[in-house]
């Protein structure tokens, strides 16, 4: 008989999937004009999971025979993931209604996906982590193709599915090899086994490499990033907002647990992989983003670049680095959610208005929307007084603290490259005259609310990061 605490420790996932099932059951029973209620249920579900994370936080420790580990790090990641889920529900509601897309399953899948991400963040065992990865991935594949009639959306889902299954297979194979060499899949056991220097080195390195590939795919680090722009561009924009923020956080959490915690003492074997991948990712993302004319696609490339920044902090292999990652994840989620939500609104029906040219003169037509988008872009660029800047500062600091001066310089170079394409959008909105009479429709309340939260968060954490940073530091401590 399992102790009751174990269920508390899994409560966020239980609540989220419970609400997911509830929505699935209620969906066929509701008449067509009442389907909007499902959004409310989903919102309550996401918020309830968020709340239950706080309940779970009262019971730190292992659960389910050490399959799940609940510590500060996992709590923090749960808050990020479910917070994102709640905001995405709000952002998606209007989008789905105006596009005439089915709603019920959407919210259910969204909740299932976040459940999987929660498990990824808390897994203490490789197969459990894999199950979490699959739950979140499969839901994501379907969500990517939600605009059934749009060619791009289909392409997005297909690409994501094919490449994604390939990547998860890599991960699984890596798990098998590690198990073969070490005889255990529990992360804490692995950690002691590595320190005791048991097991065959070749198999282990192969296994580690394969897991790195699988997770690198999810985080979108080079050279496993090729799918990102197509998938992000084709997916419905609220889904892109989700993709860009939550799975990245969850997969990075998994990577930290596996590489930093379990294989930390073998750090020298994987350090250069992370270093090279970080440098490559930053350059690939930023240089490709320079030539994009579609804003959504540009932001997709920018999220690749940001994955590179996160990897820089990872390469530091210190608690300062982990804390920087956690802080950055929050800042990044806020600004990316904000930016993509704005795009979801501006895109209009059929997502037609996503070109930079469409936004020429937007500042005169819709000053508030333009100001919001500018804020998020400036934060992505890393302008002081925004959360994005402090995130980048912590990353810089972590890199320099670990004597990674060159990586810090590369990051600096990339920040300047990135400035160009972010400013290009702002330039179009403020400096150019409008070409056409097109003006976006008035902003729905739910979207305005999402933008308010994300914008306020971006500025608040940009000015007063101390509280968040303390939490992040605690989370980083619990990883060791």
């Amino acid at each position, binding site marked *: 008989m399992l102790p009751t605490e174990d269920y508390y420790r899994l409560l966020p996932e239980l609540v989220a999937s419970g609400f997911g099932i509830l929505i699935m059951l209620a969906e066929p029973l509701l008449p067509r004009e009442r389907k909007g209620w499902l959004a409310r249920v989903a919102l309550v579900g996401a918020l309830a999971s968020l709340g239950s994370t706080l309940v779970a936080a009262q019971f730190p420790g292992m659960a389910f025979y050490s399959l799940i580990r609940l510590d500060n790090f996992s709590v923090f990641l749960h808050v990020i993931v479910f917070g994102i889920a709640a905001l995405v529900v709000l952002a998606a509601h209007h989008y789905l209604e105006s596009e005439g897309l089915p709603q019920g399953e959407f919210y259910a899948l969204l909740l299932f996906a976040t459940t999987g991400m929660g498990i990824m963040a808390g897994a203490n065992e490789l197969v459990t982590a894999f199950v979490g990865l699959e739950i979140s991935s499969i839901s994501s594949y379907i969500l990517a193709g939600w605009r059934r009639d749009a060619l791009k959306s289909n392409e997005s889902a297909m690409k994501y599915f094919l490449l994604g299954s390939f990547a998860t297979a890599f991960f699984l194979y890596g798990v098998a090899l590690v198990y073969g060499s070490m005889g255990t899949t529990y992360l804490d056991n692995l950690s002691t086994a590595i320190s005791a220097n048991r097991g065959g080195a070749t198999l282990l390195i192969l296994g580690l490499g394969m897991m790195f590939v699988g997770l690198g795919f999810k985080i979108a680090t080079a050279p496993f990033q090729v799918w990102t722009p197509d998938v992000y561009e084709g997916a419905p924009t609220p889904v892109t907002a989700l993709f860009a923020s939550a799975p990245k956080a969850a997969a990075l959490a998994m990577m930290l647990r596996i590489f930093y915690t379990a294989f930390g003492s073998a750090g020298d074997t994987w350090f250069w992989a992370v270093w090279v991948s970080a440098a490559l990712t930053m350059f690939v993302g930023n240089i490709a983003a320079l030539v994009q004319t579609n804003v959504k696609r540009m932001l997709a490339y920018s999220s690749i670049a940001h994955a590179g920044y996160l990897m820089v902090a990872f390469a530091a292999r210190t608690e300062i680095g982990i804390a920087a990652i956690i802080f950055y994840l929050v800042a990044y989620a806020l600004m990316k959610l904000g930016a993509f939500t704005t795009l979801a609104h501006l895109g209009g029906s059929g997502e037609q208005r996503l070109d930079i040219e469409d936004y020429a003169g937007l500042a005169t037509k819709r000053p508030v929307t333009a100001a919001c988008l500018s804020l998020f872009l*400036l934060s992505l660029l890393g*302008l*002081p*007084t925004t959360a994005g*800047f402090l995130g980048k*500062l912590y990353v*810089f*600091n972590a890199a*320099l*603290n670990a*004597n990674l*001066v*060159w990586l*810090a*310089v590369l990051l*600096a170079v990339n*920040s*300047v490259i990135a*400035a*160009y394409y972010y*400013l*290009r959008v702002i*330039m179009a909105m*403020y*400096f*150019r005259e409008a070409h056409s009479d097109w003006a976006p429709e008035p902003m729905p309340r739910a979207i305005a609310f999402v933008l308010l939260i994300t914008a306020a968060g971006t500025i608040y954490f940009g000015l*007063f*990061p*101390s509280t968040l*940073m*303390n939490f992040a*530091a605690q989370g980083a401590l619990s990883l060791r």
Partner: protein
Amino acid sequence: MNGSYLLTVVTFLPLLGAVALFLLRGDDHKWIRRLTLVTTLADLGISLLLARGFDPAHPTYQFEELRPWIQSPPINYHLGVDGISLWLVLLTTFLTPICVLCSWESIQTRVKEFHLMLLVLETGMIGVFLSLDLFLFFVFWEVMLVPMYFLIGIWGHERRIYAAIKFVLYTMAGSILMLVAILWLFNLTKTVDLAGTFDLPRIQAMLQTGAIVLPLRVELLLFGAFFLAFAIKVPLLPLHTWLPDAHVEAPTAGSVILAGVLLKMGTYGLLRFCLPLFPEASVRLAPYVATLAIIGIIYGALVSMVQPDLKKLIAYSSVSHLGFVVLGIFALNNVAIEGAIYQMLNHCVSTGALFLIAGMLYDRRHTRLIREFGGLATPLPVLSAFFLYVCLSSLGLPMLNGFVGEFLILVGTFDRSPLWAALGASGVILSAVYLLWAYQRVIYGDVTNEKNRTLPDASRRERIILATLAVVILWMGIGSPLFTRRMEASTANLLNQMSRPPRSYVATEDTRPQESRGVQPYARVSGTTAAVEAHSTKTK
């Protein structure tokens, strides 16, 4: 110390004004302008209080404010003013109301946003001069880019978009490496203080007492990162190419602020950070920097001589004048540095005035080309008179402000190297050539273009602006001790800060990062810091 909130008030009053501006209706241009003017004038008044309360004998920072801001890493809200920053702050608060006045009629689109940007910019500029925390300094330094970007991009001339983005990218390229250097320095302080610090006076003390010893290679790298950021801003050849674009394309108020204040941030940064934090690197690299500065002086003057565009001519003259300032700074003695600071102030007033006059001509004719003008003395006698006066001040006529700065710089530089002084002095002659030649082509002769015959002369508003500047120019020319007396203690202190305890010959503690290991252990070239001290005492 009394009035301990004064610096915060000076810094953030414009921002408060900007918030108040939000509440006004967008089409209520009159009150938007009035409110902005009142705010900036009030800020000027408060900064004058600052000058009154300033104690000239006190060598270090005054009116200091220190409050913790961010816990980890420990970042403080630390403001302070000394004899160097005091004048730059006054300059900023003096120039901003003038910019409001000069845009009174020329800015008619998006008036509210324009004034918002101007006020935010003022807060950013003052913050840069007053910050004593490296992080805080960087925040102001970067934030200030945004309003300037919009000022150029929205209200600029034809090629404004190109100019705006070039300006931002250039500045960012320099400043982001400075951020890396700041963080590197921060991590070095952790050997003394476990949490590390961004506090400038504390880092200064650590370096000066020898608590942190920078190996020469690290010092050179850090100096390089800081120097690059400032050299781009100054701008020093060959990093100056953003300047003509930005200055020419910006609206008049933008050009005035760019030339008047933003360029000074570069030279201020050299004085505040590069010299005191990295004295050995400064001394070693001084000949190279001075060479660049001299090339800049001559190149800027020659290029500006052949400009067909009046604004571009003034822009290139800035390259030349700022070369003087950098030359003075890197002569590394009391007189030259005082001269450099003085020249910073002069350049601000004189070049600001030149841009204002170019703007007034542009408002009348909507062209900046010199050949479109000619014989303006007939229709515009008052404006022409002011123009001549400002030209003379800019080229360094005795009794007017430009002379004092150039003279001090040349005297100080001569002390360091007669050759530098001789080459630099050629710039004074060249500046007379390009300014007077341009003046002649614009003002003298017959009216060649019929459109010019009926131009209205300076309006009352324009006369007020120009008269104010003229008074300041004269005052700075004959009352210079008033200014220099307040600088002396601080410049002496600056040179003092450049002294370091002698490095031991054996590399004691390896604070270098991993990558740098394996380089030859540093052998000290003796006497460099001693030479600095000798200079500073000799010139007293």
